[in-house]
């Protein structure tokens, strides 16, 4: 194997892992909602897209300076999350989970349609805001946007992990997820926890979307990113923060390798194969909790 291009492999792997960091951040947004409300949000990719388009609107269309545009977009996405929770998730409390799931399908459709209506289906570029010096790790080249994007993702992931671990709200989140009635009875404001989870999810998705959009441009079909995110959370475990991280890195790596060695169109195929493999071998994911059903 003397002629095997290890340097290339290393370079691709690095890009893959960095990209995986972005998957991890988006997966975190998903897990946040699932942990708190047991809701599977199929529209996670579309919420990511919404955040990216909000940033586009503030930064390019309204020409706001970056230090205003980014927070505005993130807050806007948080607001969107709150609106979504209040109008279409909370009314379905107590209904079978399949109903809420279908609502998120409807939500995805609405978001895609709105984006196409307002901004058309054309691809757009986001204003650059990250340093442009190429990053070299040894001999391997890493695109600066990918690197800095991953760094930002790492910062936010670390922040979320700390919050979950140490803040009272994090515990409240977990309590509400496992037993609403019990949470109510110990004084947890359950509706507020739900709103908070969706707001946080929207904001994390927006950050992820802004980064992804900066790297590859934005379009109304950005939501397809969400499919990979769904595979990430299945691999990692629907309610596991650690799983979102490791799953994200794994899927990022696999997709990058598939893309480089087989061709760009094979990325999604590779993801699907991973999905099938995981479903056959460890359906609850690497770190997901296997809920014991009671008859």
């Amino acid at each position: 194997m003397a002629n095997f291009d290890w340097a290339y492999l290393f370079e691709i792997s690095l890009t893959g892992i960095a990209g995986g960091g972005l998957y991890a951040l988006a997966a975190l947004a998903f897990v946040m909602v699932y942990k708190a409300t047991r809701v599977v949000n199929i529209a996670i990719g579309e919420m990511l897209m919404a955040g990216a388009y909000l940033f586009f609107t503030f930064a390019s269309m309204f020409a706001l300076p970056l230090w205003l545009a980014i927070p505005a977009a993130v807050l806007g996405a948080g607001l969107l999350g709150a609106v979504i929770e209040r109008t279409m998730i909370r009314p379905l409390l107590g209904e079978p989970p399949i109903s809420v799931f279908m609502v998120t399908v409807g939500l995805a459709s609405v978001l895609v349609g709105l984006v196409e209506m307002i901004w058309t289906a054309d691809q757009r570029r986001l204003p650059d805001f990250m340093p442009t010096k190429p990053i070299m790790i040894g001999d391997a080249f890493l695109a600066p946007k990918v690197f800095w994007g991953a760094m930002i993702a790492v910062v936010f992931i670390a922040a979320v992990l700390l919050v979950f671990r140490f803040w009272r709200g994090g515990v409240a989140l977990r309590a509400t997820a496992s037993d609403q009635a019990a949470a109510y009875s110990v004084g947890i404001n359950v509706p507020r926890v739900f709103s908070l989870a969706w707001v946080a999810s929207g904001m994390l998705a927006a950050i992820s979307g802004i980064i992804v959009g900066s790297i590859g441009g934005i379009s109304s079909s950005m939501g397809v990113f969400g499919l990979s995110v769904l595979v990430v959370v299945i691999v990692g475990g629907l309610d596991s923060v650690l799983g979102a991280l490791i799953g994200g890195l794994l899927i990022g790596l696999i997709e990058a390798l598939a893309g480089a060695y087989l061709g760009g169109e094979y990325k999604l195929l590779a993801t699907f194969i991973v999905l099938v493999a995981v479903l056959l071998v460890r359906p609850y994911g690497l770190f997901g909790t296997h809920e014991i059903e009671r008859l």
Partner: protein
Amino acid sequence: MRIGTLKETYVADAALFDSRTQKVWLAVAAALLVLFPFMASDYWLYLACLVSINVASATGLNILTGYTGLVSLGQAAFMGLGAYTVAVLETKVGSPFVLNLLAGGFVAMLGGLIVGIPSLRVKGLYLAIATIAASFIAHFIFANWKFTGGTGGLSVPPATLFGLPLDTSFRLYWLIVPVTVLMLLGAANLFRTRVGRAFIAIRDRDISAEVLGIPLLRYKLLSFGLSSFYAGVAGGLWAYFFRVVTPESFPLLMSIFFLAAIIVGGMGSILGGILGAVFMTMVPELLKLVVDLLPGGSELTVFLSPVRTVIFGLLIIGFLVFEPHGLAEVWRRIRRFFHLWPFRN
């Protein structure tokens, strides 16, 4: 005014259309269906065929999602499998359309089993995600395989009945509508037997169902296979109707269309599948009408597609939040009102 009906034998009680009034309505409906093509314009014939195809496919999805409680976003992909099968068989083999339609159903069913076997062993939601992935894979295969004509797709020669080409809406009506009626009948029959009951049990309480004697994986696969078969046949009809099949013919949005159809119509009810499919097929037509009537309408046509997308989503959300049992329930309320009419107030 008919409040209740008296049945004197168990067999009579189990009949699909049990009272004389219902039988009369059924005869009227059948007569209308037969007379319609002779009285309708080309446009309405076209619509009728489209509605019928959508009813067939929606009924298939209803069996899976409405009755068995398993969400699928792959209905369009399986229709695509059926459509491509028919296209390939017509162009390369020239076999009779009945065979082609059945083959389309079987290929789609096979696709369903491949997707279903890994995903149905766990919770139902994994099936939904797997079907989204399957939609992308199917698109990838259709677009990249020379056998299926690549991105250009395949053009489909018309179905022929004893040498007579079925190439007008009028002629296709007599193929599409009877097939749809048969499929509806099959679905209605299903839920008078243990198979249908098992599906509903899986939806309502699957873990208890197993202890009561229902092998879960087998019946989930059965439901998914059957619904895929329905999709495949509907896709085959689609191919004979539109006469061209491309990878873009069956996008994910179409799967969302069918999901919206059964939610709007009423999940878990055959009538719901019919009402929903009719409603959803009319929505884009109504939109077109509205845009034509509005001043400055010609510039708005570019918005038709995204507006449609938004409306599909809003219908799903709206009905789930406000009218979860769909139009079928609205219909039931109207009927009850009229049945009890003299006794109100």
